[in-house]
């Protein structure tokens, strides 16, 4: 029997560290419990970004969240990437390292996307083997997140929650439960998000993600560009209850608000922690009063200021 959160602490309520807020954080030391960084943003950067990160890491707990591990790819693992990941984690004292259950490319390509795998025995054994290799290399458990997905494969033989549960147990890894992603995928693929959350091995859930998404009428897209909706807060309440609490982080990557607004949004989680009621939740695609078109809400513009 594992201890809760694989022995990791519950850090409380944190936010994703984005460079538009560096100055405010360093000048004001806001009372945020912890920060999560995007690993790749700092693995190859020295200079000022790294100098600022080091200062923030001296004041706050930091965890690392990656987008390029590509644990589901059939290409060989990238040990050059893993060496840089391990070095950064050691240097900044990251409490844990997470990434996604996905693949980003094959044949040496990188699509820069979080692509889904078929939920099959073959995928499971392939990914479990790779997680074990990565964990041996990093010398710590890997924490893997459920991404939002937009397709499913005819060859899948598991539900996503069955796959995650078996993966976590067989690889002995941790889980990052993105509650918004559960909701988005439940609408896109017509499954029950309550069954999803209730079925996971709760003692392996180290962290939660919360975020906003966009409703396009026919499907949802995980856009990280607005507040958390009520249905996701309801699912968060269930996740908190079933896990007895875990470190909770708000992601906001498009139309990023000022820091006070960002922090206030994650603090809403306090209203949903240690709440017992979760009766009658049903995930249905809400009606949209206005069709959303061509809303390019992505993080490119703050990560590369000269991007058009």
């Amino acid at each position, binding site marked *: 029997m594992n201890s809760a959160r694989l022995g990791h602490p519950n850090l409380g309520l944190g936010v994703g560290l984005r460079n538009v807020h560096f100055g405010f954080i360093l000048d004001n030391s806001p009372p945020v419990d912890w920060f999560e960084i995007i690993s790749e943003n700092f693995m190859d950067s020295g200079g000022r970004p790294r100098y600022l990160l080091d200062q923030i890491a001296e004041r706050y707990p930091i965890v690392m969240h990656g987008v390029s591990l590509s644990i589901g790819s059939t290409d060989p693992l990238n040990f050059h990437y893993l060496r840089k990941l391990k070095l950064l984690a050691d240097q900044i004292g990251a409490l844990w390292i997470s990434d996604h259950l996905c693949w980003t490319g094959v044949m040496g390509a990188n699509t820069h996307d979080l692509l889904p795998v078929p939920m099959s025995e073959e995928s499971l054994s392939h990914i479990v083997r790779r997680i074990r290799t990565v964990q041996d290399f990093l010398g710590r458990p890997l924490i893997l997140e459920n991404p939002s997905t937009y*397709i499913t494969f005819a060859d899948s033989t598991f539900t996503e929650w069955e796959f995650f549960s078996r993966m976590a147990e067989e690889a002995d890894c941790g889980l990052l439960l993105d509650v918004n992603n559960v909701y988005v995928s439940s609408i896109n693929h017509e499954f029950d998000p309550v069954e999803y959350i209730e079925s996971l091995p709760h003692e392996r859930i180290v962290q939660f993600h919360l975020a906003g998404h966009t409703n396009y009428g026919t499907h949802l897209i995980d856009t990280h560009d607005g507040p958390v909706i009520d249905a996701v807060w309801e699912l968060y309440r269930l996740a908190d209850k079933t896990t007895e609490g875990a470190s909770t982080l708000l992601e906001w990557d498009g139309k990023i608000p000022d820091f006070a607004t960002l922090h206030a949004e994650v603090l809403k989680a306090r209203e949903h922690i240690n709440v017992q009621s979760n009766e009658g939740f049903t995930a249905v695609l809400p009606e949209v009063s206005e069709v959303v078109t061509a809303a390019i809400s992505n993080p490119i513009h703050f990560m590369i200021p000269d991007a058009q």
Partner: protein
Amino acid sequence: MREPPRDLETIERWLQAVITEPAGIVAGLASEEAQRNIDVSAEQIEKIVTRSNTLTATQRLAIYGHAYFARNVCAPSFRFCYTRSMRSFSISLLLNI
């Protein structure tokens, strides 16, 4: 009759070829690389990718296809794209597969 499952490497190579084709998903399905891995037409696509109640399999694939296009147009020199937020661009193009 149900076909035997494809191996993971084949599916990944096929999907990458389909969603990275500049001319769109239907052209991607017909591309040499996609056909070399899985010989399936747009009409047969649900043998590989399922549809939802609201979107066809091709429309669902286009969410990834247009996201790839949007990233490469918006930021061609960008090495590390944090991409989960990038699919909204695809919606206006979704009907023009």
